[in-house]
């Protein structure tokens, strides 16, 4: 089917502004194929059903809208965690600022290096999971990423990583327009925790493809925040083998536009996938639009999936949730859970939710719920009756509201770190 003219024009304009990065044979082939996908699909348009609640123009336009940088831009989150730090500045790997990349049980390479080779194991994943994720719903920004990403990391985990790998994204120029592509391969029984934080760029397009072999585990915790004007479209594509575990949590504060997509496929029996997010936006300090779009496919027996998304919105902030659980024929004993909730702190804020279940197996347990509400007056009064002033009591109720999402972070020290970041965001707003 021919693309509508508007879409064709917008896609053409963007592609004309891009230049294909240098690379070896394998990655050049993957990029060319991805570019063909983009041309066939066209970039997102506001009339697309999947972009009904989030306007994609600023993510698609040839030029990124500028975003201010912070003078003290080094984010402190995860600073106390023993980790292997990999730093990117304006989307480019910074070897100087990064730790040595050697870590027992883990092979780490910058994408630019891996891509320069003519043969690399990453060829079996790079753009491959993204391609699988293009059906039944198209995700053209992810294909655009595969075609043009020049940096990122390629990680292969063969044992239990002795410490988390931490990707730190710094932004130095106001016009930075970054495209990252990460590939993570967890071998059978291996285990990795991946942390991500930092503003990254004025505009960020990020894709992470994760393959977890049988019995492997991947824990992912990221924070997106601080910079009010930043715009981001991120995708996580994951494929899970037998008895594997995938857990991902995202804390988002601020941001003019964030669209986080998670596309997860459970292909081995007894696998577990949890995705969670807490987003806090205050329209008084800048536009805030946050979109979590999740698609989980159960294609094996006895798997468990959980989606837990909480949004705290005030002063015209907008939250979006599009979450789907697809249970394929034969995926018996599936246990699927999905909850999306918003705490609207005033009448100006908005939460748009589209929860979906599509089930073709007959022996499954799937539940979903979506709510919007004001702060729990009962709890607020309880705290105030103990002498806690209203503003602090309100913040404690906010923490109580997002607690279910925070609980998805397994590591206690990391969870405490994320909580303290959330607390300081609330505190800054109290003045």
């Amino acid at each position, binding site marked *: 089917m021919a693309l509508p003219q508007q879409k064709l024009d917008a896609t053409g304009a963007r592609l004309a502004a891009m230049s294909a990065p240098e690379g070896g044979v394998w990655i050049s082939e993957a990029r060319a194929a991805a570019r063909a996908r983009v041309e066939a699909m066209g970039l997102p348009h506001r009339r697309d059903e999947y972009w009904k609640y989030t306007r994609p123009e600023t993510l698609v336009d040839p030029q990124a809208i500028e975003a201010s940088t912070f003078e003290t831009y080094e984010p402190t989150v995860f600073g106390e965690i023993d980790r292997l730090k990999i730093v990117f500045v304006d989307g480019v790997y910074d070897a100087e600022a990064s730790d040595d990349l050697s870590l027992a049980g883990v092979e780490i390479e910058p994408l630019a290096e891996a891509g320069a080779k003519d043969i690399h194991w990453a060829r079996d994943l790079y753009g491959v999971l993204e391609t699988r994720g293009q059906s039944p719903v198209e995700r053209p920004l992810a294909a655009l990423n595969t075609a043009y990403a020049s940096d990122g990391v390629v990680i292969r985990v063969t044992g239990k990583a002795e410490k988390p790998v931490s990707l730190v994204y710094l932004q130095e120029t106001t016009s930075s327009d970054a495209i990252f592509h990460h590939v993570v391969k967890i071998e059978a029984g291996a285990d990795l925790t991946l942390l991500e934080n930092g503003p990254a760029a004025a505009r960020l397009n990020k894709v992470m493809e994760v393959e977890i072999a049988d019995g492997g585990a991947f824990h992912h915790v990221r924070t997106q925040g601080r910079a009010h004007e930043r715009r981001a479209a991120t995708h996580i594509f994951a494929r899970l083998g037998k008895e594997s575990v995938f857990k991902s949590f995202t804390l988002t504060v601020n941001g003019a536009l964030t669209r986080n997509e998670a596309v997860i496929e459970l292909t081995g029996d007894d696998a577990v996938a949890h995705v969670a997010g807490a987003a806090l936006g205050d329209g008084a300090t800048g536009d805030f639009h946050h979109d979590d779009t999740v698609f989980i496919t159960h294609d094996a027996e006895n798997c468990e999936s959980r989606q837990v998304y909480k949004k705290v919105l005030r002063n015209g902030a907008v939250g979006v949730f599009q979450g789907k659980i697809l249970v394929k024929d034969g995926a018996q004993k599936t246990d699927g859970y999905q909850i999306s909730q918003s705490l609207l702190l005033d009448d100006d804020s908005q939460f748009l939710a589209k929860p979906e279940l599509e089930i073709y197996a007959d022996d499954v347990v799937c539940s979903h719920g979506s709510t919007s509400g004001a702060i729990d007056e009962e709890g607020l009064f309880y705290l105030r009756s103990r002498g*806690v002033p209203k503003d602090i009591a309100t913040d404690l109720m906010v923490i109580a509201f997002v607690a279910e999402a925070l609980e998805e972070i397994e590591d206690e020290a990391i969870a405490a770190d994320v909580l303290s970041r959330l607390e300081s965001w609330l505190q800054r707003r109290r003045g």
Partner: protein
Amino acid sequence: MLEIKNLHVELEEEGKKILKGVDLTVEAGKVHAIMGPNGSGKSTLSYVLSGRDGYAVTEGEATLGGEDLLEMEPEERAAAGLFLAFQYPVEIPGVGNMTFLRTAVNAQRKLRGEEELSSGDFLKLIRAKAKTLKIDADMLKRPVNVGFSGGEKKRNEILQMAMLEPKMCILDETDSGLDVDAMKLVSEGVNALRNEGRSFLVITHYQRLLDHIKPDVVHIMADGRIIKTGGPELALEVETQGYAHLLNEEA
């Protein structure tokens, strides 16, 4: 200590009259009990005094140590020395019990212009007080009231009371949902806090709590007013004869 004069209260939304002229004075160091049938306005009285939304005072006044309670925000009433032990303590997920209590203690101190407690001093204090109420370290760490049994929740209320050291404590049906052992434990906690400077208002349906927390004065409340006041023997009268005859007496 607590003085309530001709207090009239109605529900803000429906305009329904709940309290119809309550007069009550609780002297320093005394324990007063309020008994009465369901719907007599006992719990409303406790909520109005502690500043919960949804009630409109149409007439009368309530003061604590001479200060006008009804003009204050709930947190100011707490700092002024008022404490309400809830009939149904609220669960606050994600907020550690200890963090919550420390926030409360220090917020009150700040409001009163006192110095905040250091974490070391706070820890020492709470450990000692928790021990006497058989509250273990795990309960202190867990989110406020989340997953607590009925008895644990009420013990937690008393722990808060012990930490905040209020002048005027209101216990709203603290005995509801408690077994005999839990009631004993809670009562011991309350009795340990009794002193010359601290007053209690114990709201209850039943006399049995008053076996453990011995009141100086007992009031009977019905249809939004106090219809009879007496000594501890009044509670026994209710226990044996019920409220009906008192209500008839009044009529």
